[in-house]
């Protein structure tokens, strides 16, 4: 119960601070709250948008949560998801005639593999060379952004558009939309995200490799003494994490845009950190926290429209305050745990 109370308080505190800011701007907190709720859950379409934003956050939340158990902090989900999306789009654009059930499977594998590679590199560097994964994942985010720009603009550019995006994927790749949510670009990728959350839970708690990852995160020296290959466990955790982040590309490319668009992610990879911290690393918690942040993102995006005084920047501040409050709280808990051991 207490484990649940603290994250809830953190969210409440962040929201309260955010509402204070909007109140200073001249908008009644109650009204802002109502708009947030309406805009996130008010109609099937709104709910669909909320779930649409939650889908990538489940993947990135898991991509941060899993390595957290192995004592690693993955700041690289943004780069990993960029490459995952790029790979899915590249496969879809280069082999457009692959027929339906095979095509999405192929794209999912490509997205996972590309993200996994981007997780493997910092995992390997940490395990074998001892260089810190936080630094390396941040660096690799930049490399991924550059790589994605190059491929998009010079190799796979969509000649019909001025926007920086790749050519369209073949028809066989497109995931079906969940029509219950009206026109929202919500696709079956949501189910893939829920499946991923289940698999992460099963990995952590039901497999030997998961146990070993957690042991390494719990006490590296004890894990080593017990004969656990701690380097392998670390590399595995980062590789899986990268792959999970890469799967963001499935929802975006196969379920939404039908192509890779540069800059499509409004920092899903970084919001994923807040999701994972709020979830205290638990897979089920990640789903719940992703839903919350998805709702917050959808809700705040409409504040500008629905109010006189809350501009886009103010609504971003509101969102940022919640993320900050959650991250500060979660990070503090995590660090305290790490220091205690």
């Amino acid at each position, binding site marked *: 119960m207490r484990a649940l109370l603290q994250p809830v308080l953190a969210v409440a505190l962040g929201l309260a601070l955010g509402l204070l800011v909007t109140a200073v701007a001249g908008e009644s907190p109650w009204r802002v709250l109502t708009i947030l709720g309406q805009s996130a859950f008010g109609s099937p379409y709104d709910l669909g948008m909320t779930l649409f934003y939650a889908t990538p956050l489940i993947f990135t939340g898991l991509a941060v949560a899993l390595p957290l158990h192995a004592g690693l902090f993955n700041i690289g989900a943004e780069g990993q998801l960029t490459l995952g999306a790029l790979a899915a789009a590249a496969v879809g654009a280069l082999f457009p005639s692959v027929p339906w059930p095979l095509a999405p499977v192929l794209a999912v594998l490509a997205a996972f593999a590309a993200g996994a590679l981007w997780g493997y590199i910092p995992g390997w560097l940490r395990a074998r060379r001892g260089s810190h994964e936080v630094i390396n994942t941040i660096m690799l985010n930049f490399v991924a952004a550059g790589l994605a720009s190059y491929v998009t603009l010079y190799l796979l550019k969509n000649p019909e558009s001025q926007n920086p995006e790749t050519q369209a994927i073949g028809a066989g790749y497109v995931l079906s939309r969940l029509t219950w949510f009206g026109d929202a670009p919500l696709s079956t990728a949501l189910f893939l995200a829920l499946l991923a959350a289940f698999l992460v839970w099963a990995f952590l708690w039901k497999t030997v*490799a998961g146990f070993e990852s*957690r042991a390494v995160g719990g006490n590296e020296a*004890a894990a080593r*003494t017990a*004969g*656990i290959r701690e380097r392998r466990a670390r590399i595995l955790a980062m590789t899986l994490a990268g792959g999970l982040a890469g799967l963001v590309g499935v929802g975006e490319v196969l379920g939404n845009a039908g192509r890779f668009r540069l800059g499509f992610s409004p920092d899903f990879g970084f919001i994923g950190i807040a999701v994972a911290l709020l979830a205290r690393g638990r897979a089920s918690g990640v789903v719940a926290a992703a839903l919350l942040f998805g709702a917050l993102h959808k809700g705040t995006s409409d504040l500008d429209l629905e109010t006189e005084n809350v501009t886009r920047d103010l609504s971003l501040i509101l969102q940022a305050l919640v993320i900050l409050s959650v991250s500060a709280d979660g990070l503090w808990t995590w660090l305290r745990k790490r220091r*205690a051991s």
Partner: protein
Amino acid sequence: MTSETPALELRGLRKRFGQIQANEDIHLRVREGSIHAIIGENGAGKSTAMKMVYGLYRPDEGRILLRGVQREWDSPSDAIAAGIGMVHQHFMLAGPYDAIENIVAGAEPEAPAWRFLPRAFRPVDRAGARARLEALSRQYGLQVDFASPVEELAVGVQQRIEILKLLYREASILILDEPTAVLTPQETTELFANLRRLRAEGKTILIITHKLKEVMALADQVTVFRAGRIVGDVARERTNVEELASMMVGRRVNLQIQAPPAPPRGEPVLEVRGLCLTPASSGERPLRELGLEVHAGEIVGIAGVEGNGQSELLQVLLHPRDYRARSQGEIRCLGRTILNPGGGERPLSTARIKALGVGVIPEDRHRQGLLLERPVAENFLLGLQGRAPFSRHGFLSGRSAREAATRALEEYDIRPRSLDVAAAGLSGGNQQKLVIAREFEGKPRLLIAAQPTRGVDVGAIEFIHRRIFRARDEGAGVLLVSSELDEILVLSDRILVIYEGRIVARFARGEASEQELGMHMGGGARA
């Protein structure tokens, strides 16, 4: 009791930390000019009581009287000002500085000529300090090299510096926390002589310890703590080791278990030849041409003062890959070469070594043995997770792990009997029993047991020793590393003495006396 005013009197002290009642109803009178031993198992509350005396904790209730006057302190500096000083188990010395600087730090004497300067800018009167310290050193017979950096001095000398520090601050009551834990037997003898001299000079000494033999050799009065309370307060002449042990544990204990006859010696399970290690940092000790053999069915004990290469030997045995570039010599374990830098083969990984049938009770169970935040069940599984029946095809079988762990809790009497409490919630003894239960579950053919009873209460020591004997009798070879000489003497079929990274003496069971071992441990037998 005599009618004279005691140097220190505690009346009804009580201290609580959250759920835990650390001290209750503590009444104690310490006679002026006496050596007073405070004994008890870990967690019995003796340190808490002394920390209240020393001003580190504030009592929730009760009074502290110093020579009949009630006193209260907010911090240790108040206690020091009142004449109470403490030598901690881990010395509080700054390594690169010499004895004088260490002693005067915080109470620097000022040269009178500079009084006009603000306090912080007045220079230290080093010559005056040195003169005073040399006088103190002569008066109490505490010989110290004042000029060398303290990190270059022997542990016994460092301890003397700590005592001098208290005397310099004019302490009349000295509290020593486990002062012999880090000393060789010879150094212990010297310390005791010094303490007796201090007593003769009128100082009052409180010594916290769990070594009953030392209590009997030194103390005038003994106070026994158990479960936060005082359960006994006796004059030394009127008691004996057995009675004190029973008071500490609360039941009769068998202190000297008889070693069962050793089974016939089997094949060698561990052979170390000419092992050399070049240290990578100043904290690491070298190993020099170290050689030893452990056979199936015997216990080989390595005696030595801590910091003579024991930790490094254990690390190389367990993680040879990490030491490949810095080591020479050869290690064979259970028929496999695990390290042979000259031979060009890659050393075995820790995982492979453990899979050969090696069980490890690590030196530092918190750092190397347990996932403190994780539940007991997971700690039991640590290292066993890859084996049947605990997992199949990479998937854990939670049920068989819990069943085996439940059995182990019973068999090893680990309390509380819960698989779901975090390991951090267990007492030291129960944590150690958990580690031992887990390592024995793997049926090791070579058991490496480092400090197996460190921080473990008297009752559990007996149990752990019996277990180690049983492992031997079932055919395992045991390599025992311990800084407790008694433990080495009881358990070992053969004793090797390690000094500065090499084996300097070898004895069979019963061949060596404590004195003789102590001499080798101190490097004294080397020409």
